[in-house]
Every structure is written in structure tokens, then in C-alpha cells.
């Protein structure tokens, strides 16, 4: 028990110390978080009317970011899997950082769930025993289950590992390894279930196809590692902690080929939908070319395509892929491209046209943008804290010293 309090105190103490750069970063995130808290308050007193959502398009930025971030959380498995399944040396050293990323991504997802609800004050209705849990029928019920499970698994695996490093005790592989394996498979389940959440709705023909889960996984395993590569490069340049080249190179390979598969799947979908061009293709057609003179999403779609295709090409060029000065460029491009593809390119056009054929457009309001930005800021805030503490422990800066 005494060890535990010391662990917490040491951790917090280490995280609080930092240079000007660190305080500037955390301070600007905090400003955004305060803004987010204000608009969240506004939304819960005025109602969802302060957002751009309507009865026609009732899921917007929040849901889009939720879906995207589930992918980022799942993407952490691209570190954990090579580390434990292939005993990849470089990866093994940083596996715990991937788990920290997963934790902060799931926290962001949870916050987007709160932002999305019309009545967040009633969320306890979903808790088993005191509320009602429509299980196993409701996909949202499944989603809550897998997300909570993933958060718990990663928190246990990550912090147990750090704890052992901190106290210098050996890791008990008897139960640690099974848990890691469960977490790896579980990572797939979170994005698969999120895909099922929307692809099990025949009322929305644009989503109603079985390619959705695999497309989700492919994009997740591109977007997640992109963020991780960026984080690793920042860590390498700003701390004494050294992330091996081999780890970054393996992640680059994973990103490249998952991006390639994602593009191939998108192309297949476009061909299948637009060759016959049935009424059910209207959503995709609206997204690509506009419908009845409404073209709000067309630049977003083509923007995403350009970002994804060009980053794929850049990743294929060895001189860029292996140059860690240039590598952030395709990473940012792929990350942004997939973010657009999941948000404006998937969630919103699913509602256009509506089931009765009404074509209407969605304009996110300032409140929505600020809330979204604020949640991202909060996620990065948590991520910085988790990564900084973890690095401190991995480096041996924080160590348990038995009190005399």
C-alpha cells in the first residue's frame, strides 16, 4: 500500500516537472479544455439545438470522431502484437507506450459518447443491475462492453508493466501474457463492433454492407500507427528516451500496407455501388459528386482521397519512408485523410438522402467544432501525462526506493 502511494506520488511529481515547451503545450491544451467545458455546459442547458444536427442528420462530428478514435485505440495493437507475438526487440521496448495511447483514445471515445447523448444525465440507465442493458440485442450495448473492456485490459496490462519496472519486481508472466493476448484480440473487436454498429442498419443503404468491419480495421491500422510514429518521433527528439529505428520502420510498413488495403476496399465499394448505380448508391453518389445541386461534402471526399493516395505513394518511396525528418509529412497526411474519410466521408453521407429520399445538408456549428477540439485536447493532455510518466519509469528516472 505504501508502495502504491509512493508510485502515484513519484509519477505525479515526475509528470509535473518539465521545460517551457512542456508547460506551453499543456497550457494551450488546458485553454481548449476550458472552452470545451463551457460549450458542453451550453449544450446540456440549451439542448442539442446548439449543434448543427437535425432530425434528418442526427449524428455528426461527435459520432464521426467517436468512430475514428475507436480505430486509433485499436491501432495500438500494431505495437503490442509484434512485440509479444514476434518478439520484436524495438517494439518490445515501447509496447507500453502503445497501451498508453489506447487508454487515452478510449477515454476520448467515452467523452464523445457523452457529447453525443441527448440526455447524458441518464446514462446510468445503461448500467447493468441499476439500469437496463439491452444485451445482446443492442449493438451499442456491445460497443460499450468492448470499449470498457479494452480500457480496463490496457490499464491493467500497461500499469502492471510500469509497476513492475518501478518496483523492480519480475513480471508474473503466468497471468500477464494471457491478458496481453486477450487484449490483442479485443483490440480487433472494438473496431469490428463499432463497424457493426452502423453496418447493421438496412435503413441506411450506404452503410449496409459486410465490407465495413474490414475497411474499419484497415483504416484503423493505418491511422493509429501514424499517430504513434509521430509520438515516437517527438519523444526521440525531445527526451532522452530512444525509440529504435526498427520499431518506427516496422510501423511504417504496417501503415503503408493497411493504407493500401483501405484504398483497395474503397475502390471496390465505389465500383460495386456506381456500376449499377441503384437508388441505394445515392449516398455515395452524393458524397462523390453531389446530389440535386447540393455538394457540401464533395471537396471533403476528394480531399480525403488525395491525402490518402498521395501519402500511400510517399510511403512507398524508400528515401521518404526511411528519412525520419520527412516521415511526419505522409503520416500527418494519412491521419488527416482517414479522419475525413471516417467523419465527413462516412457518417454524414449515411444520412443523405434520408430514408424517405430527402436531400439535406449538415453544417457543424462552432459549438461542435470547439467541443470536438476540446475533447481532442483533453485526449492529448492525458496522453502526454501517460507517456511522460511511462517514459520516466522505462528510463529509470522514477524508481522505488525503500524508505529507511
Amino acid at each position, binding site marked *: 500500500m505504501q508502495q502504491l502511494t509512493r508510485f502515484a506520488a513519484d509519477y505525479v511529481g515526475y509528470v509535473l516537472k518539465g521545460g517551457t515547451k512542456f508547460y506551453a503545450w499543456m497550457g494551450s491544451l488546458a485553454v481548449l479544455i476550458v472552452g470545451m467545458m463551457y460549450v458542453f455546459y451550453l449544450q446540456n442547458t*440549451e*439542448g*442539442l*439545438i446548439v*449543434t448543427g*444536427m*437535425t*432530425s*434528418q442528420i*442526427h*449524428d455528426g462530428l461527435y459520432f464521426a470522431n467517436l468512430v475514428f478514435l475507436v480505430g486509433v485505440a485499436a491501432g495500438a495493437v500494431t505495437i503490442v502484437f509484434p512485440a509479444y507475438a514476434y518478439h520484436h526487440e524495438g517494439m518490445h521496448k515501447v509496447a507500453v507506450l502503445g497501451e498508453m495511447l489506447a487508454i487515452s483514445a478510449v477515454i476520448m471515445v467515452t467523452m464523445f459518447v457523452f457529447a*453525443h*447523448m*441527448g*440526455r*447524458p*444525465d*441518464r*446514462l446510468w*440507465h*445503461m448500467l447493468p443491475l441499476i*439500469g*437496463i*442493458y*439491452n444485451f445482446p*440485442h*443492442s*449493438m*451499442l*450495448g456491445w460497443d*460499450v462492453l468492448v470499449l470498457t473492456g479494452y480500457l480496463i485490459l490496457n490499464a491493467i496490462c500497461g500499469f502492471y508493466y510500469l509497476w513492475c519496472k518501478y518496483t523492480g519486481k519480475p513480471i508474473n508472466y503466468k497471468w500477464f501474457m494471457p491478458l496481453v493476448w486477450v487484449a490483442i484480440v479485443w483490440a480487433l473487436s472494438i473496431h469490428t463492433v463499432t463497424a457493426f454498429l*452502423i453496418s*447493421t*442498419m*438496412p*435503413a*441506411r443503404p450506404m452503410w449496409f454492407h459486410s465490407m465495413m468491419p474490414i475497411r474499419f480495421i484497415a483504416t484503423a491500422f493505418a491511422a493509429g500507427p501514424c499517430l504513434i510514429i509521430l509520438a515516437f518521433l517527438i519523444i526521440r527528439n525531445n527526451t532522452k528516451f530512444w525509440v529504435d529505428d526498427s520499431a518506427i520502420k516496422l510501423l511504417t510498413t504496417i501503415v503503408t500496407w493497411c493504407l493500401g488495403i483501405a484504398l483497395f476496399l474503397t475502390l471496390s465499394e465505389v465500383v460495386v455501388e456506381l456500376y449499377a448505380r441503384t437508388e441505394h448508391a445515392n449516398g455515395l453518389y452524393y458524397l462523390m459528386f453531389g446530389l*440535386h445541386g447540393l455538394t457540401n461534402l464533395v471537396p471533403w471526399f476528394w480531399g480525403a482521397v488525395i491525402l490518402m493516395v498521395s501519402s500511400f505513394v510517399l510511403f512507398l518511396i524508400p528515401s521518404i519512408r526511411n528519412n525520419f525528418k520527412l516521415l511526419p509529412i505522409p503520416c500527418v497526411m494519412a491521419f488527416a485523410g482517414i479522419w475525413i474519410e471516417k467523419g465527413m466521408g462516412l457518417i454524414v453521407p*449515411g*444520412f443523405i438522402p*434520408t*430514408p*424517405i*429520399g*430527402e*436531400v*439535406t445538408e449538415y453544417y457543424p456549428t462552432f459549438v461542435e467544432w470547439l467541443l470536438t477540439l476540446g475533447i481532442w485536447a483533453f485526449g492529448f493532455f492525458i496522453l502526454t501525462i501517460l507517456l511522460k510518466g511511462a517514459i520516466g519509469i522505462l528510463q529509470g528516472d522514477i524508481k522505488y526506493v525503500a524508505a529507511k
Partner: protein
Amino acid sequence: MTTKETPKACPAEEQPSVCTAPPASADPAASAPKTSRRDFLKAGGMLSMSTLMGTAALMTQSDDAHAAAEWAEHFQKNYRLMTDAEKAEARARLERRYSQEYGKQVTVDTTGPQPGVLMGYALNIRKCIGCRRCVHACVAENNQSRGTKPGEKIEWIQVLRMERGKFEQGKMDHGYPEGLGIQVGGNAYTPAGQVLEGQYHYTPEAVPEQDATYMPIACMQCEKPPCVKVCPVRTTYREADGPVVIDYNWCIGCRMCMGACPYWARRINLTSPVLPKEEMNPVTHYLGNRPRMRGVVEKCHWCLQRTRHGRYPACVEVCPVGARKFGNLLDPESEVSKILERKNVFRLKAELNTFPKFFYFYD
């Protein structure tokens, strides 16, 4: 479709003349044969409610019925799990609160499904003239939000106005291939059936219009409702007598049901509903037209406050051409059963296996 069957043009903007006054038969106290059990429960309910109110008032430090009721509502159970006493309690609480809020005697009916009844609806699309009186009557009867700002206006029924298509000689060669091009289908037909934003809010001079046909839709009260399956908290469900209802006090506003509905029959209360005191219909049902709150989903429930007491839904009653029919599907002598037996009937989006209890027919 021919026009000869539709009646002469009549003014479209005639105000609905019915349904705002409490119908005598819809008052549960007056209509149902006196049940001493209910009276007993009500008395018991009042007693326990007052206890609860006292506690709640103490906790909120307020004796305002609205605040106290809201406090208690936060912790009430899902409607289906409530005991009869708890239902009576919730009912009394709401009646008191609404009466204070709207300045009139409000009743909240909790009558359940009647045995041997399965409600069904039939609509003669050949007769509909697109006057939209059903829409207005529905809004008045069911206490929908009347705001003018986007997002504040809620209507459960849409009468889709669709332009009649026609084949035109000038378009015969449209899309015809040139050179080695492949013929992928020229279309001499003017596309019909497309609905654009707000096209069900049309206000013509007179109806029916020469160049339009109408397709009224609302909740289809599916036998296999996709909305019920996706609800994570089982707040929406199908009642034994047919209608799909929502426990407004249990809805978390996740909008999964709206995504799953192939008929776009559900609406989200983006803000607190705008319901003027004088326009509020005080005859309500717990699962039906009682005033809703911000952030919850609502939908058509076939006027439970009326139909459970032997009356027609407001839209059926108001329809000037008698296009709308309503009745008990289990009773072979009911109007709806006879229509299903004798007329040409179809259901919307049959391929989705939702099995609507809302049937379209034509003579």
C-alpha cells in the same frame, strides 16, 4: 392514377377544427367502467407520492411541483418495470406537475393494451388529396413542438408531394450513344418520386394539385421494429396491442433508433419543446402525447390516449376524404380487416422484413 376519384379542390389552409378540446371518452375517469382497483391504487399512489414529494422537496429545498417531480423522475424505473403502485405514483406526479405548468387540469392516462386488440391502419393513397390536415391535427392532438426556428418544429406525419412523371418525346434520345458508345439507358421519363428538403411542408393554393400525387407516411408500427432491437436501454418497445412506444423518461437520446428506422418516423427533441399553454392538449397518455422533454426521441403512437378508449386517431378523424382507416386487425368485422381482405394492399419497403401494420391500398 386518375383524378376523377378525388373530390373537388378544397382550400388547403383550412384550420383543423377538432381535437384540441378534451374528448369526453378519452378521459379515463369518464370512459372506462369504474374500476375500484384504480381508485384504490390512485389513493395509495397519492399517499406514497406525497411522501416522496416531501422527501424530494426537502432534498431540492423547494416546494415547487415541477422541481420536485423532476427530481423524482430522475430516479424512476423503466415504465415496464414499475409496479401498478409505482405507475399510479408516476402518473399522479406528472398530472400535478403538468397541471401547474400549463395552468389547466391535465390527465395522464396509463391504460394498458386491451386484450384481443391488435391495432392496424390502412390508407387509401388514391384518395389522399394532400391537404395535410392530418399533419396539423396530429400536431395539435399530440403536443408536438411548434417552434419556428429549425429544430424546434416537429411533425410526425409527412405527406410527401411527388410530381407526376411523364414520357416526353424530346427526351427520347437522352443518353443515346454516339459512335462506339455503350447504350446505358436514355430516360424519356421525368423522374418522379424524389423528395427534397422540406418538400412535405408545401402550401399550395388548393388541393389536389393537377401535377402531383401524395404519399403520406408516419410510423409504420412495425411488427418487427428495427428501432426496438437497437435501443441500448429498452426504452422503446412494442406494446401488446401493436403500437411501438417510447418511455420518454428512460430515453438517453442516443438516436440509434432514428438511424435504424427505414421510414424516418422518429424525431429528436433538440431543445425543450415549444408548447404554448393555451394550445396544450390536456388529455394525455403516459406513453403517448404527454409533454416531452429536451434530448429525447419521440414518434407517432396511434393516439393511445384515444384509441385505447375506442376512438379513432386524430388523423383518421380529421381526414376530409376518408382516406385513413383504423381498427382492430384481430376482428374480422373491423374496417381494416375488410380492407385487407378485399382491396389491393401493399406495405412500404417490404424487403426489409419490418412487417408494418400500416397498409396502403387502392380501389
